[in-house]
């Protein structure tokens, strides 16, 4: 029995040690700007009066440092693949309990805002980045699956697909993003990848997404909650490469957002429709069809600053 237990223990330890090593490598694989975004919420290093929400188009498109000169402090909390449901959980469980209420919220609303395939991010998936206090508070909450929170907290269990394995020993993000320029939640793309420009989204754009009623309802609920908290919302649609007004006008998400914004007295700056600028025609300002690159984000943020100055008094 002793020999068996000793050998089994040794085998178990070997496997555990390998798992810890893999865990470490996965933990170091990404430049965790998400972790920094969450950290800011509990540490309050910057005085933030305006939060920026949205998907990856927002994360890599709006530069708080450019907007800061308007007066209020800006911070980019946009995260790729984040839906209204994600932000409802984020706001009610992370932001509101841990951070003073800001005056403004810029929500980078895309045409796929209510599509749950495009916007895949689940709140529990982010437990890897949660500050300890947020993680433990969520563990106690009946709203979330405890097992999911725990498994997503540990990189070894989070990245358990064989597809993740080839990335074990390389820092995936460095080839895509200019990490040295990370600031206040914003992370710029390298100016690159002409071959990634494909026109396919323009032609049949309206067929590329669906509208989830549930996401729409949660969106409305969150907007109402923010209004109740005294936050002024501003919707922004970030420029996309080669966007055609005639096609974008047909997109039902924009029609809905337009009417919703009017009804709720929310400014809606759509840079692919009425506020379209020459940025949308300049390939060198984009990393791909939907993401501005370093230079593009700078130029766009300058335009946005000008437009916001008349809204933020």
């Amino acid at each position, binding site marked *: *029995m002793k020999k*068996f237990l000793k050998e089994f223990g040794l*085998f178990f330890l*070997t*496997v555990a040690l390998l798992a810890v090593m893999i865990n470490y490598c996965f933990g170091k694989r990404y430049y965790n700007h998400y972790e920094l975004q969450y950290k800011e919420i509990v540490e309050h290093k910057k005085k933030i009066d305006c939060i920026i929400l949205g998907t990856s188009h927002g994360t890599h498109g709006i530069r708080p440092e450019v907007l800061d000169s308007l007066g209020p402090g800006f911070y980019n909390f946009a995260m790729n693949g984040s839906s209204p449901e994600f932000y409802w959980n984020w706001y009610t469980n992370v932001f509101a309990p841990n951070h003073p209420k800001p005056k403004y919220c810029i929500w980078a609303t895309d045409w796929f805002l209510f599509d749950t395939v495009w916007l895949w991010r689940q709140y529990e998936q982010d437990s890897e980045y949660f500050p300890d206090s947020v993680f433990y508070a969520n563990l106690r909450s009946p709203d979330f699956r405890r097992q999911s929170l725990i498994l997503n907290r540990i990189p070894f269990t989070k990245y*358990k697909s*064989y597809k993740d394995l080839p990335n074990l020993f390389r820092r995936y993000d460095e080839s895509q993003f200019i990490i040295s320029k990370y600031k206040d939640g914003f992370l710029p793309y390298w100016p690159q990848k002409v071959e990634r420009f494909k026109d396919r989204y323009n032609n049949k754009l309206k067929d590329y997404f669906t509208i989830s009623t549930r996401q729409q309802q949660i969106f409305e609920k969150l907007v109402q909650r923010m209004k109740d908290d005294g936050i002024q919302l501003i919707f922004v649609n970030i420029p996309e490469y080669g966007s055609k007004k005639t096609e974008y006008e047909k997109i039902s998400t924009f029609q809905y957002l337009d009417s919703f914004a009017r009804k709720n007295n929310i400014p809606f700056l759509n840079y692919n429709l009425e506020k379209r600028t020459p940025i949308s025609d300049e390939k060198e300002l984009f990393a791909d069809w939907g993401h501005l690159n370093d230079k593009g984000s700078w130029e766009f943020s300058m335009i946005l600053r000008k437009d916001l100055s008349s809204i933020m008094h």
Partner: protein
Amino acid sequence: MLFNSLGFALFFPVVFVLYWFVAKNNLKAQNFILLVSSYFFYACWDYRFLFLLIFSTFLDYYTGLKIYESKTRQTKRLWLLISVVINLGFLGFFKYYNFFVESFAEVMNSVGFKPDIWTLNIILPVGISFYTFHGMSYVFDIYNDKVVPRKNFVNYSVFVSYFPLLVAGPIERATHLLPQVESPRKFDYNKAVDGMRQILWGLFKKIVIADNCATYVNMIFDNYQDQTGSTLVVGALFFAFQIYGDFSGYSDIALGTSRLLGIELLRNFAYPYFSRDIAEFWRRWHMSLSSWFRDYLYIPLGGSKGGTWPRVRNTFIIFLVSGFWHGANWTFIAWGALNAIYFLPLLLSNRNRSNMDIVAQGKIFPSWREAVGIAVTFGLTVFAWIFFRSETVADAIAYIGRIFSPSLLSIPGVISSDTVPLMICLVLFVIIEWLQRDKKYALQIEGIFSSRLLRWNMYIVLAFLIYYVGNFGHHAFIYFQF
């Protein structure tokens, strides 16, 4: 509590420690721990049916004693009849009541009557087919003077409800398991290591092979009307691997777990897909059920003795009953009938026992004759599995009909970069099983790799393969529903 769940990973070490360290060499205490843990294990599924399990145990215990005490053959037969009627009554009620009522109503409908049917919302108690058959084999063996009834109720209860085999077998025999339950057990290092290896291999079969195949099988069978012929062929092939990986994987984990407790269970699978004919397949697939039906149904009916008609009748009876045992659905009966049709030519030409040895023993490759035999048998088996997996017989026929369409020659829709890891694992799986076909299970490698370091590396690779390629959706084992 599934074998491949966190619950079992916590439960078993506790049982192991109590069994070997607290009870130590005290047989009574060890059996008591086995009984309590088995009941706990069962109650985790559904505590309400624990009483049914205890009642069934007591019924066979009592009727066994009564059969033994009876002075005349008639009284013995009466007690046997009581046991069989009550056992099959419970099984029939929980498993087949709705099937019979609905089938009766359909027949009446077809002749113009519209009877008020009385179906019930019955939950099938997990493992009922298995523990009922355990108990019945005990009573039959007492009746046939093969076993003396046990007075110790705890020992007998452990035989019926021993947790590694409780919910999906192997279907044990009193002659094999009871003596082990009654004998002192000492921890055996080699057996324990062997048990661990078999568990690891069982997990690989279940989590990597079966559960990954299940994803595609469900997708294809649930929407077979929209699939191409070639995709449907892939679906049937994947199901063949799914059901084998699932059930034999379960059996490997059960055998390995039991070996860690010092108890050997009956072997349930012996590389059935390498069979050269259907008769050999049935000697290698779900062996504990096949031998149960052989001993308690086929042989009492006369077996293969007598003229052509009794042999044909007995063959059909045993295969139809075997099909029906799997569930209350005509698809299982069709599956049984198909296997009977496959089997009959071999039986009638007295070639049903011509492949008793291990295929291509001592060689790496089979002969052409053997290869053709294996391919034909596998093809026939896969064809029959379509009935087993389909919702209805009409679905199975439509599925087969769609296979034989021009789209049979197209590239299967499910083949993509996502299926590559599964394909690689399937090829590896078949190769390893083929190379190890003379062993009790495929990971029995201590004689092949003398270096411990090499063996350990293989275990580690397998463990990580299970982790990274496995499907952890916690699919229940298919045979739990039977």
